[in-house]
């Protein structure tokens, strides 16, 4: 457990010391949004929803990809001697989750400022955004581990990730669309389903990562 925390702390420290990558990510999100802002003026609620999640997806790929790809081969070997693979992957996943929560909050803010605010139940929507950002980062975190082991770039990660993530994104979009109209109540089973999927991803990552790890 303390291993996990120290690994997360190490990643956060690295992030703070090399802030260019975080700002790069921020700029990526802002630039994407500005393009959308230029392309569409005040979209309807469902288009807003769709655009928001697609943007989240792309931000997530870029945010998570570097978590593994930044680690050089030598450094991976170093971690290998120090840690159990389970604590390593858990630390990476949770660190990605934290990063993605921050990015979700920022991009939601940008969206509200630039694209108008069609959201009716704001509190619930923010919760869904965090849940969604976290779910996306979990799946892509593990796929980034695969891509990094295969010595591939983020494009391969996107190829592997999009089909796998579709069901989750569909569920998320359906869920969040309920936050736009005052009449529809929020379906609790869908939230539980998403949480169950998250738990499943973590479980799979813990089981499968040791196989990826050893060379």
């Amino acid at each position, binding site marked *: 457990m303390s291993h996990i925390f120290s690994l997360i702390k190490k990643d956060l420290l690295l992030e703070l010391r090399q802030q260019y990558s975080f700002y790069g990510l921020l700029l990526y999100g802002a630039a994407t949004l500005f393009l959308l802002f230029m392309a569409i003026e005040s979209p309807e609620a469902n288009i807003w929803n769709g655009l928001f999640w697609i943007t989240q997806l792309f931000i997530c790929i870029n945010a998570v990809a570097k978590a593994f790809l930044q680690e050089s081969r030598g450094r991976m070997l170093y971690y290998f001697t120090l840690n159990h693979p389970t604590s390593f992957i858990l630390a990476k996943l949770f660190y990605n989750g934290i990063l993605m929560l921050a990015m979700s909050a920022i991009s939601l803010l940008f969206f509200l400022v630039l694209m108008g605010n069609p959201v009716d139940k704001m509190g619930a929507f923010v919760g869904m955004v965090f849940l969604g950002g976290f779910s996306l980062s979990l*799946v892509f975190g*593990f*796929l980034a581990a*695969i891509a990094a*082991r*295969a*010595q*591939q770039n983020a494009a*391969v990660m996107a*190829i*592997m990730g*999009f*089909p*796998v993530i*579709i*069901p*989750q994104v*569909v*569920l998320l979009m*359906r869920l969040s669309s309920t936050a736009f109209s005052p009449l529809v109540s929020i379906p609790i089973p*869908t939230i539980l*389903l998403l949480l169950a*999927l998250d738990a*499943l*991803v973590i479980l*799979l990552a813990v089981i*499968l990562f040791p*196989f*990826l790890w050893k*060379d």
Partner: protein
Amino acid sequence: MTILLLAYTFIAGLLGPVPRLPPLQETIRNLYFHVCMWFAMMILFMISLVHSIRYLSTLQPKLDRAARLYAGTGILFGLLGYGTGAIWASFTWADPNIPLLDSFSTIARDPKLIGAAVALLVYAAYMILRDSINDIDKRARISAVYNIFAFVLLFPAIWILPRVLPSLHPGNEGNPALDVENDISADMRIVFYPAVVGWTLLGIWITQLKIRLQVLAGKKFGL
């Protein structure tokens, strides 16, 4: 092994033609082909999954080869399923007043079609991932991990999503579930179950042939 394979051949050969003789009305005959294709696809993907899991626990290269080839045959059956489904849909779902291509985007929104598309995309990605890695051991291990990960995430989603989203499937009877027991009569069931087994065995047979071909090719080049 060869005897086993020949047994497969005979079973598949004998059961394969059975679906072609049903004495029932017109488009419903497609059930024996279309639905069986999907069943065969799912079963082949599952076999591929089992091989991947066994590969990770034993690290025998032949299991990895089997996993890859079963996935390949699964993709083939998936594409055939789309083909037969498209023919079926063009007679039942498509609006005759609109050209088929225009009504495609509404048909393709059906959750089962989405699920099938996702499954095919996943396995296409699996193939690309495999081919992108040069080191044989690494390729085997990484693609086995992806195979398991994708399958486990994908198939619950395929089975859950159609129950969450509204569906047109099976559509023409207006009965929204893949409930084989209720949808089809006893007469059809007699043909349907053997047909599923037959198509699945055909898929397994094709794959076994491909595996043997690869083994022979490997031997020829002294591997």
